[in-house]
């Protein structure tokens, strides 16, 4: 069923942590913007076995450990658009998700009826305030200047950027028009702007 997607982990010994963080970061952004299963499989291949070791130590039980891995990696897939590389590395983001899930799991196991959950304590998986984590282009750079670079963007990102910056639509309107989740519009916008920024920097 998943022929061609190898879980073999090419990062284990070869890459330096920083290179790895950059690579994982780029992969997560692809997952957020394009729902790219291939990119996700690489993130999964790197983190799932490590999370299992962490979870085994924390939970002391293989079944619970695998539940923790599954819940954590499910969040990574479903909420990849909430990852923001400016705020921290992928491993920190994924650790904090796992820590939160473990916190809630332990209270559920102890059958404690406490009305305090990890989302209250560590807002890892909440939108902070709308659009706060957008990448913004430097003011002196106009859309005209980036026009030629704009054409190099993947079609899906181009469509979102066009609708927002040329047609002046809101992100919600774009989401409705393309029938995709708002989070996907946001992450495509962020990814596209980041790419344009990178291209501009290479340009000078």
């Amino acid at each position, binding site marked *: 069923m*998943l022929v061609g*997607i190898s879980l073999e*982990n090419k990062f*284990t010994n070869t890459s330096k942590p920083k290179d790895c963080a950059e690579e994982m970061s780029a992969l997560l952004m692809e997952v957020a913007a394009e729902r790219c299963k291939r990119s*996700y499989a690489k993130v999964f291949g790197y983190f799932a076995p490590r999370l299992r070791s962490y979870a085994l130590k924390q939970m002391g039980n293989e079944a619970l450990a695998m539940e923790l891995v599954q819940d954590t990696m499910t969040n990574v897939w479903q909420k990849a658009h909430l990852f923001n590389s400016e705020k921290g590395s992928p491993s920190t983001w994924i*650790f904090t998700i796992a820590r939160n899930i473990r916190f809630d799991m332990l209270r559920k196991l102890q059958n404690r009826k406490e009305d305090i959950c990890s989302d209250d*304590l560590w807002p890892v998986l909440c939108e902070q305030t709308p659009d706060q984590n957008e990448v913004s282009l430097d003011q002196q750079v106009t859309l005209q200047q980036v026009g030629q670079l704009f054409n190099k963007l993947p079609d899906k990102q181009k469509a979102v950027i066009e609708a927002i910056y040329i047609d002046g639509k809101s992100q919600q309107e774009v989401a409705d028009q393309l029938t995709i989740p708002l989070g996907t519009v946001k992450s495509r916008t962020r990814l596209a702007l980041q790419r344009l920024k990178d291209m501009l920097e290479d340009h000078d």
Partner: protein
Amino acid sequence: MINYHPTDKQLRQFAEGNISSALALVAAAHCDVCSKCQAKVDDVNLELASDIENIKAHTFSDPAFDKMLASITQLPVLDAPVQKSPRIELDGRFFDVPRPLQRFVKKTGNWSKLLGKVWQAPVDLGEAGMAHFIYMEKGGRVPEHTHRGTEFTLVVNGEFSDGLADYDSGDLIVMDDEHIHSPHSNADDGCLVFSIVDKPLHFTSGIARLLNPFSHLFFK
């Protein structure tokens, strides 16, 4: 200015998630307004995350992981709820509260007069502890008391003193049976605090001692 912070040990336990819910809540609320402590928590997160990265993971493929991967990638994307910022209202005055406490604003009951110029509103935390927002008007005072358990107080807005020290917005105060104090505010705008106790208070002076048999009624 914030002078009373969680200890480094408490911040580490908070980052690890190995902490009681009650302390975690006030620590989270403190970190929301104290960038110094938030930076310490971020450092511990970084350290714990690199521990995970440094784990020597198996490189062979595992059928359980193949199955998990396949089932996860069939799931839809989820939009996170955008957090609103509800505020505490008392007598037409509105108070902003730290983000971790915001969900509890709508779980806050009605304000009632505790004593003199002290008002309180209960907050439902389930079994995590007995919590209240407490507001001391200028000149308001909670009778001297000690604690049968532990009392966590976060100063939400304003200043107060308790005979042991002076506190300001953002301060986190942990009291137990070794402390006797009598919180009071002389600030013009009074003081709003959020407090959690795991056991009822024990009043120590004067006529307030008569409250002891009923203290579970006041602080529950």
